[in-house]
């Protein structure tokens, strides 16, 4: 049976409740178990930390998709002194699955581009579960060119199951819209900082990840396709999704080792959704560390390095 929810916290809560009951009961019966209980509580705490240090990839997938995980709107609100959302692709529509605009982070104006997920059913429907249509990518494309016009650095947040697979999306050129963003970001003459904050799924997520620095929250994942899709396509067995998640090397740690991710941003124990403030503080620190470096870099050099970074990804043998 595949785990569909990461319920460790719930189990812990149950355990703690039991402990409390035990304590109450023992007090009633005039036993003094307080020192034993203290030891138990300490053990639980230790176990919890250990547990979160040893999450298996599938558990991270579940954490990265946690409905209460902070999203683009939370980060933008916390990061920006000033913020104006800009909408529309100037061609066909406004795609609510992506949020975009100009914000000021500690005095630095940024074009901020992100996917947008909901925190409840209504929002999820409104934002199409963070799955963009071509209009979303064309809005991004437009605002990338705008950022270039004003020499304004770009910050992106990545958290999406992927581009929406629907009739309209294909009719209006999903593939064409995504490839244009990829190419534009590869050659964009302003610094780009990208942060994977939740789940990064497939080419639809990659569109915002072409950057000078790619950072990743510790429990975020980034995959060529969802482990579910891979398990069902490659192994014709959806039950083996946990194994697939392991095989695909999708965690921040794996991707750091593969040289795709430049730095892992720590999350509070238990995951970002348990402590927004701490998560945001980590993200702020990461931006403070990386943004000035790429902003200060000569543009031609920045672009040469960005190309070199992309160009060097891939491993193969040569026998000629």
């Amino acid at each position, binding site marked *: 049976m595949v785990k569909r929810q990461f319920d460790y916290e719930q189990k812990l809560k149950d355990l703690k409740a039991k402990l409390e009951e035990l304590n109450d009961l023992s007090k009633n019966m005039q036993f003094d178990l307080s020192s034993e209980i203290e030891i138990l509580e300490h053990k639980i705490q230790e176990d919890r930390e250990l547990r979160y240090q040893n999450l298996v990839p599938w558990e991270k997938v579940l954490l990265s998709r946690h409905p209460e995980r902070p999203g683009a709107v939370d980060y933008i609100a916390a990061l920006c002194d000033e913020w104006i959302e800009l909408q529309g692709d100037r061609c066909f529509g406004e795609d609510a699955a992506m949020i975009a605009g100009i914000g000021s982070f500690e005095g630095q104006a940024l074009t901020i581009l992100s996917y947008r997920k909901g925190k409840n059913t209504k929002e999820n429907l409104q934002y199409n579960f963070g799955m963009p249509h071509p209009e979303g990518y064309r809005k991004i494309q437009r605002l990338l060119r705008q950022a270039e016009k004003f020499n304004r650095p770009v910050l992106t947040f990545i958290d999406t199951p992927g*581009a*929406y*697979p*629907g*009739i309209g*999306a*294909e*009719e*209006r*050129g*999903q*593939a*064409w819209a*995504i*490839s*244009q963003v*990829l*190419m534009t*970001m*590869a*050659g964009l003459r302003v610094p780009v900082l990208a942060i994977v904050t939740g789940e990064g799924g*497939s*080419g639809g997520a*990659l569109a915002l*990840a*072409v950057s000078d620095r790619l950072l990743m929250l510790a429990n975020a994942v*980034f*995959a*060529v*396709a969802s482990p579910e*899709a*891979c398990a069902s*396509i*490659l192994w014709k067995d959806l039950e083996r999704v946990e194994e697939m998640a392991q*095989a*695909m*090397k*999708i965690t921040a740690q794996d*991707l750091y080792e*593969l040289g*795709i991710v430049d730095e892992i941003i720590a999350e509070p124990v238990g995951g970002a959704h348990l402590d927004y403030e701490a998560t945001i503080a980590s993200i702020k620190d990461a931006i403070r560390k990386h943004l000035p470096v790429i902003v200060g870099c000569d543009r031609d050099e920045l672009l040469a390095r*960005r*190309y070199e970074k*992309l*160009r060097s*990804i*891939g*491993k*193969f*043998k*040569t*026998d*000629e």
Partner: protein
Amino acid sequence: MIKNTFTRKKFFAINPNMDHSQTPIKPNLSSTCPSCSARVSEETLAENYRVCAKCKHHFTMSAGQRIELIVDSGSFQEFNGGLASINILDFPGYEEKLEKAEQKSGLREAIITGYASIGGYDIVLAVMESDFMMASMGSVVGEKVSRAIERAIERRCPVIICTSSGGARMQEGMIALMQMAKTSAAVNKLNEAGLLYIAILTNPTTGGVSASFASLADIIIAEPGALVGFAGPRVIKQTIGQQLPEKFQRSEFLLEHGMIDIIVERSQIREKLTCLLSLHKGGCRG
């Protein structure tokens, strides 16, 4: 111009370890057209560009056959033929799949790249081979496309890529996905150099290849009836829970929806390419 290095029938045998020439000719002497169910002999097919004479259904072509179809006879000179995949992620069963693919296709990977000429114009050509793991894009495909583009920039000649792909190669995980960004970055360099890039989309071109270099060409040609799209029809049907429109994601549908420039039949492709190359004076910025 590179010419007559090989005889017409053996143009691809660059890599001495591998004799591609064995693969295209299939042992069975006749096939059933999947579209109109007519019986067609392999010989007739070969004479007719592997197109069903009755219903114009385009049968799959191997990369070798395709090269023969479009370039000047004997002009193809392969490069980077020795690049081959490794199991970067220790993904279960990947080596076996690669081996099978090699046996099935007779190629080391899902793409052949090289110099060639068409109508006398020098070009760099890349052709994908769907018999090799559905021409999925991993490190080698990404690398060979990027190198092909870089060689074209060096020589200041146009690039022509015949695409067909099931998408990114899952067995290489994020490394495979990043090839989308890598090849798109290479196309950007080609644009900056003012060089011509023509894509020929063949059946099927989906996923990561459709959403990277395949749709970034200056001029996009598609074969009749080719399926091209980001999401595969099965995924879409599952997601939306309804039937898909007829001709959905096919070339004719894409033309109507403004995604491609032109549909060209196999019998016309060499002529059209020659015309395009001539109109671009070989492919360089005026």
